[in-house]
C-alpha cells in the first residue's frame, strides 16, 4: 500500500482540520481523521449521512484545500458509462469520415479529439489536478455500483477502441450517500468511511456565525435551539445545516426590515421546512418551540 504522509503540506488530521476551517468548513475530529487517512492511504472517502449535513460541502472544501478542480458526478437511476466515463463524439466522427471519402487526409476517428471526457475519465487522466466527487451514489442502481467497484479498485478503465487507461497516481475520490439504500459491502470495504452526524449545538452555532453574514449571536443561538428541536420531530424532511444558516439569514433580514423577533422566525419558516405536511404538523407547536428557543 502506497502511503503518503504529507499531501500539500498536510501531515496530520489537525492540519487538515485547520485548512478546512480556512476554507469555511468546520470539520470535527472524526471527519478530519477519516479524510486525512483517505488522502494518505490513497483510498476513496465514503461519506454517509442524512440529507443536508454537509457531505457535498465537505467534498468541495477538501478539493479547495488541495487546490484541485472538483469533478462532480451526480448519480441517478439508470446512470451508465456514457454519462460517467466517456462518449465518442459521434457527429464529429461521421463528418471526419465524410471528409476522408472526399479526399481529405487520413484521420484516426478514435483520436482524442473525438473522445468526450466524462468525470471519471477526466479524473483518471489528470489525477493530480482533480478531485472526483461521486454524489448520492445510493440513487444509482446496483449495476453501476458494481462497475464503480472495478473502477475504484484499480483506477483503470478500458475503452475498446483505445485500450486500457490507467491513472499514473491514485486519484482523490469522494463518494457520498444519503443511505436510502445500503451500499454493497465490497464497495464500503474499499473506502475510508465516515458517518456525518447532525452537528452539536456549539458546532452548528459556529457554522452559522462563520457562514452567515451579519447574524447576531442571539439570533444564531435561537436558530440552533429551534432547529435542534425540529430535528426531534417526526418530519418528512429534517432541516439540514444549510437550512439553519438560511433561516438565520432570512430572519435577520426580516428583523432589519422591522419584524419583531419571534415573528421574524415564524415568517421565514419556509426556508427551513419545505413540505406542506411538515408545516401542518409543526404549526400548532411552533409558538412553543420559538419561545423555548429564544429563552
Amino acid at each position, binding site marked *: 500500500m502506497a502511503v503518503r504522509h504529507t499531501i500539500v503540506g498536510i501531515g496530520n488530521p489537525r492540519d487538515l482540520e485547520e485548512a478546512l476551517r480556512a476554507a469555511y468548513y468546520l470539520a470535527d475530529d472524526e471527519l478530519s481523521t477519516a479524510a486525512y487517512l*483517505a488522502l494518505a492511504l490513497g483510498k476513496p472517502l465514503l461519506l*454517509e449521512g442524512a440529507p443536508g449535513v454537509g457531505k457535498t460541502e465537505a467534498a468541495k472544501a477538501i478539493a479547495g484545500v488541495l487546490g484541485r478542480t472538483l469533478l462532480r458526478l451526480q448519480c441517478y437511476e439508470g446512470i451508465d458509462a456514457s454519462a460517467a466515463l466517456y462518449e465518442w463524439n459521434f457527429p464529429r466522427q461521421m463528418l471526419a469520415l465524410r471528409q476522408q471519402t472526399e479526399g481529405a487526409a487520413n484521420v484516426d476517428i478514435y483520436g482524442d479529439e473525438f473522445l468526450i471526457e466524462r468525470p471519471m475519465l477526466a479524473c483518471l487522466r489528470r489525477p493530480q489536478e482533480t478531485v472526483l466527487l461521486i454524489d448520492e451514489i445510493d440513487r444509482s*442502481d446496483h*449495476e453501476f455500483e458494481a462497475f464503480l467497484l472495478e473502477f475504484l479498485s484499480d483506477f483503470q478503465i478500458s475503452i475498446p477502441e483505445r485500450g486500457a487507461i490507467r491513472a499514473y497516481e491514485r486519484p482523490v475520490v469522494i463518494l457520498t450517500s444519503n443511505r436510502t439504500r445500503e451500499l454493497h459491502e465490497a464497495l464500503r*470495504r474499499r473506502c475510508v468511511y*465516515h458517518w456525518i452526524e447532525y452537528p452539536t449545538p456549539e458546532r452548528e452555532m459556529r457554522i452559522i456565525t462563520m457562514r452567515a453574514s451579519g447574524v447576531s449571536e442571539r439570533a444564531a443561538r435561537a436558530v440552533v435551539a429551534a432547529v435542534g428541536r425540529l430535528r426531534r420531530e417526526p418530519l418528512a424532511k429534517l432541516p439540514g445545516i444549510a437550512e439553519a444558516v438560511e433561516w438565520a439569514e432570512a430572519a435577520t433580514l426580516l428583523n432589519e426590515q422591522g419584524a419583531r423577533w419571534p415573528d421574524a422566525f415564524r415568517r421565514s419558516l419556509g426556508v427551513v421546512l419545505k413540505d406542506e405536511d411538515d408545516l401542518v404538523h409543526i404549526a400548532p407547536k411552533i409558538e412553543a418551540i420559538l419561545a423555548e428557543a429564544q429563552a
Partner: protein
Amino acid sequence: MNDTMRPIAHFLGFTALLRHAGFAVAPEQTIAWLAAIELLGPNEIGDIRRAARATIGPPPERFAEFDALFDAHFLGSIVPGLEGEPSDEEPIRAAEDSSVGPEPIFGDETRESGAEATTAERLSARRFAPGDEGETLRRFARALPARVPRRRGYRWRSARGGPGTDARRMFRDAMRHAGEFVRLRQRRRRLRQRRIVVLIDVSGSMKERTQAHLALAHALVRAADSVEVFTIGTRLTRITRPLRLRNREQALGTASLLVADWDGGTRIGDALHAFLAVPRFAALARSAALIVLSDGLERGDPTAMADAVARFARLCWRIIWLTPLAADPAFEARTAGLVAARPYLDRLADGSSIEGICANILDMANEKAA
C-alpha cells in the same frame, strides 16, 4: 506466532473479536487500519479508535456496539448489553443428523435465530399429501415467465426503436459501404430478471397453508430463473435446492425434511435478523423482489421485526407481504409487529388463497413503488 507478529497481535485480536460479533472485516481493511494507526502516530487511544472507525466502517446503527467492543478490548472495560445481538456467543445449533440428499449439511443452511423462545419450539417432521391446486399452479407457471419483475441490465444490445444509438455497429456497417451510413442502428439496455426471494412462515398459526405455500414456491422455482426460498418460524432454513427437483412430491418431501421447526412458535423478527446476519443470504436480497408469506403474528419483540423489515426495505427492490388475514377487505395491520413494519412494505395484501398469491406475484412487476 513469531516475533514480528507480536506487536500487532493485540490489534488483530480486535478484528477477530469484531468478526465474532458479526461485523464484516476484510483483510484489506485490517491492513488499512494498521497503516492508519502508524500514520496517526498514534498519540492516544482516540487515534486508534478513529482509525478503526474510518477504515473498518461499521454501519451507523452499530456504532454503540462497535465502541463497546473497542472499549472492552483495548480499555478492558466490561460492557453489558452485548448479548442481544443476532450472532450470539454460543448459537444453539440444530442438533439433528445431517439429512442425506441433494442439499448438503443441515447445519450449514439452518440458523438458530437467537434470543430465548417465547413459545416452546416444537420441532417436528411432516408428510405431504398430494395437493389439488395443481391446475392453478400450472397456469401460474405458464404466465410467470412473461411477467416476472425485471431490471435494466448494464449491457446494451442492438434493438430497433431503442433509445440509444449503436454507433459501433453503424461504423462497422459504414466501412462496408464505403464510409456511407446507410441505416440508423439503435440499441437498448438488456433486461434481466430480478431475483425473487420468498420467505414462507411455517409457524403453527400458518399450519393449514404451509403445504400450499411450498407447492407454490416449487412452481415459482421451476418457472423463473433466479428464485430463493426460505422458511421462517423459530429458525431460518434455506430450501431452494430441494425445490429445484422436477417432481413436486419429491421436491416437497425433501424440502420438508430440511425444515425442523414445523408448526412451532413465531419469531419472525429473529428469523429475519438471522437472514440478514448471513452476508451470503443478505446478498441474495439485494435489489430483489421479496415476497413474505406470513400472518405477521409475532411472538417476539415487534421492534426487532420492524428493524429487520426496515433493513430489508433498504436492500430489496420491493417487498410484498401476503397475509391470510387480509382476505377480509376491511383488513388493516393491527398486530404490533405488522403495524411497525407496515411503512416499509410496498404492499400488504391478501394471501388467503393460492389464486390470490399467484395474482399478487404476477402483478408485482406492474406496480409503481409505494
